[in-house]
């Protein structure tokens, strides 16, 4: 990466973490924060035990239970024995290796990508890893954050480093302003449809431009979260005053002179004017409208006002075959208006859209309205603290009055490792990140949407945006 030329944000963070660099070998990168959960860690802890190795830096490691946890009756033992064993294994491992754990019932428990930022553990310029591909979420703070496999989890536990080859860099320039009712989720869904699920392969994406700067930190997390669905290793946004305001006063943020020193350093974390990206993609925010997916990968999407495309319209044979297969799996036909697709389930939650602003947005749409007959709506806060905050604001009552279910915190129906699943052929509008075959339950069909579209869809029973509701009422 860069020498005399200006450097990108990603390159600056990379360079600041190189422990060792040698010709023909990957760089050895120091890791500032390692997030751990129950699914991808048991074999890594086992590896340490077998080799007689300790966790090098328990003080840079934090674990929580999120993927398997039930979202009802959380005070009772987990009914699924295999899930329970996995959670209990994490508890034993954390106790044995001295790793801080936020278990079910703890106020800091929640989806790993929600609790890191919430605690102020995720900060600009850091390297953050987790055995979960949506670690890209933390890039919203200007951190270099990416998902790793279990072998790498073991490597980080043992050494607090990772051998890595430099990533390529991609700028996604989002010009203009978003229209009302159009959100960060719509930006990222539109981007993935534009560049494809392999479009960002090998790259770190830096999201830039007026539309990105105008977003809240939580909305930035939504965008960075889904970078992986475009094939990118990570997504980043340069830290600014919005970022610093979000962080100040959080439990693990620096204070006093340390805070000032941190902010002074963070202000330098911007791509230099003369830096060059390997790839540049442009998007005009002002032309965007609510965006949804119709297929079985996140790149198969379209504006809500459009029709399902004809597979024959795809030039690439692999894309055509994938579209045909997707429509068959989804039980849909080309030419159908997306607004005519009826759903039976609405899921609001996940590391993509399970934060307080997402719940507020959905609540505002559904307030005073009812979930349509035959539709179940699950609202699953991303963390216990998000849940408590929502209850303090009365959002739980708004959802309950509308006929939605108000649940405990966790990954829930995003991947259905707990009992929250779709039955075969059930169809959801989901604020999560993946519409893969069977992702939310065997045979289940998923349409990815924003929280606003999710709430409006719950009311009409068909894919809808809030503006459709206004029209009905007039």
């Amino acid at each position, binding site marked *: 990466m860069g020498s005399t030329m200006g450097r990108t944000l990603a390159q600056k963070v990379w360079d600041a973490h190189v*422990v*060792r660099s040698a010709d*023909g*070998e*990957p760089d*050895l990168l*120091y890791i*500032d*924060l390692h997030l751990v959960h129950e*699914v*991808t860690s*048991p*074999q890594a802890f*086992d590896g340490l035990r077998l080799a007689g*190795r300790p966790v*090098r830096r*328990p*003080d*840079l*490691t934090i674990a929580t239970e999120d993927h398997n946890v039930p979202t009802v009756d959380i005070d009772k033992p987990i009914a699924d024995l*295999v899930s329970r*064993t996995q959670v209990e294994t994490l508890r034993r491992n954390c106790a044995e290796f001295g790793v*801080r754990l936020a278990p079910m019932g703890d106020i800091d428990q929640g989806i790993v990508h929600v609790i890191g930022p919430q*605690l102020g553990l995720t900060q600009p310029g*850091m390297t953050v890893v987790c*055995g*979960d*591909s949506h670690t890209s979420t933390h890039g919203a703070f200007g951190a270099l954050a990416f998902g790793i*496999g279990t*072998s*790498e989890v*073991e*490597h980080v536990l*043992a*050494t*607090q480093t990772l*051998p890595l*080859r430099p990533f390529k860099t991609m700028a996604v320039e989002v010009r203009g302003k978003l229209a009302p009712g159009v959100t960060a989720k719509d930006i990222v869904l539109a981007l993935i449809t534009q560049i494809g699920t*392999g479009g960002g*392969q090998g790259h770190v994406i830096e999201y830039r431009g007026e539309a990105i700067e105008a977003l809240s930190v939580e909305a930035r997390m939504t965008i960075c979260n889904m970078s992986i669905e475009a*094939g990118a*290793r990570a997504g980043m946004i340069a830290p600014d005053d919005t970022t610093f305001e979000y962080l100040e006063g959080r*439990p*693990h943020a*620096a204070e006093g002179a*340390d*805070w000032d*020193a941190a902010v002074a*350093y963070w202000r330098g974390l911007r791509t230099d004017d003369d830096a060059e990206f390997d790839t540049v993609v442009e998007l005009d925010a002002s032309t965007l409208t609510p965006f949804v997916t119709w297929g079985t*990968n996140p790149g198969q999407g379209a504006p809500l006002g459009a029709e399902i495309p004809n597979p024959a319209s795809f030039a690439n044979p*692999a*894309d055509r075959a*994938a579209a045909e297969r997707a429509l068959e799996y989804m039980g849909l036909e080309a030419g159908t208006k997306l607004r005519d697709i009826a759903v039976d389930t609405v899921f609001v939650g996940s590391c993509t859209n399970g934060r307080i602003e997402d719940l507020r947005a959905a609540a505002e749409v559904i307030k005073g309205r009812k979930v349509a007959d035959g539709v179940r709506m699950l609202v699953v806060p991303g963390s216990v603290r998000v849940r408590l905050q929502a209850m303090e604001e009365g959002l739980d009552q708004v959802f309950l009055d509308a006929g939605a279910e108000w649940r405990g915190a966790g990954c829930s129906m995003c991947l*259905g*490792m707990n009992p929250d699943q779709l039955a075969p052929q059930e169809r959801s509008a989901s604020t999560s990140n993946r519409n*893969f*075959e*069977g*992702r939310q339950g*065997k045979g289940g069909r998923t349409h990815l949407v924003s929280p606003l579209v999710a709430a409006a869809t719950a009311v009409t029973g068909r894919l809808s945006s809030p503006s459709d509701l206004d029209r009905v009422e007039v």
Partner: protein
Amino acid sequence: MEKFTIHTGRALPLRRSNVDTDQIIPAEYLKRVTRTGFEDGLFAAWRKDPDFILNQPQYAGVSVLVAGPDFGTGSSREHAVWALNDYGFRVVLSSRYADIFRGNSSKAGLLTAVVAEDRIEQIWADVEADPATEVTVDLAAREVRWAGQTAPFDIDDYTRWRLMEGLDDIGLTLRHEEMVTEFEHSRPGWLPRTLPAKSG
């Protein structure tokens, strides 16, 4: 990790693109805490269909998976690699892989070779015409050979060396432990620690 130099076996022509790791192994199989025994989860949803290619008797005992572009997208679950290994696959051939899947493969000794899309098409056609076709994947020569044909494949030098030597990354890194310690002394004091937590 077992050393990999050359492998010869029969191939599975999987004519699908965008095979995500949720398809390679669905989430319900990820609840185990062991490192082996994931073969039953491999393509579990697709294998319920008796016509799925892996269920066809002529493809019993295959060890080389030949797939469409963007193989291994989505979740970072290394279980996808373990499931392929446990089932008996030693090599995947595709024109493009998701980054995390490819990294995981190299850690677990599964060779993921990048082969041009038109060569993949040719292997599909030849293997479908004769499922007994033997495919040789030669890591030393960076070459795939089948039915009298050859195709080069891409893999970086370092990964190739590690696979051929069967080296463990942690062991390699720990050779430089003093550099890690030195780096740690240079980290700014305001960086957060998870322990002990301040109240708040």
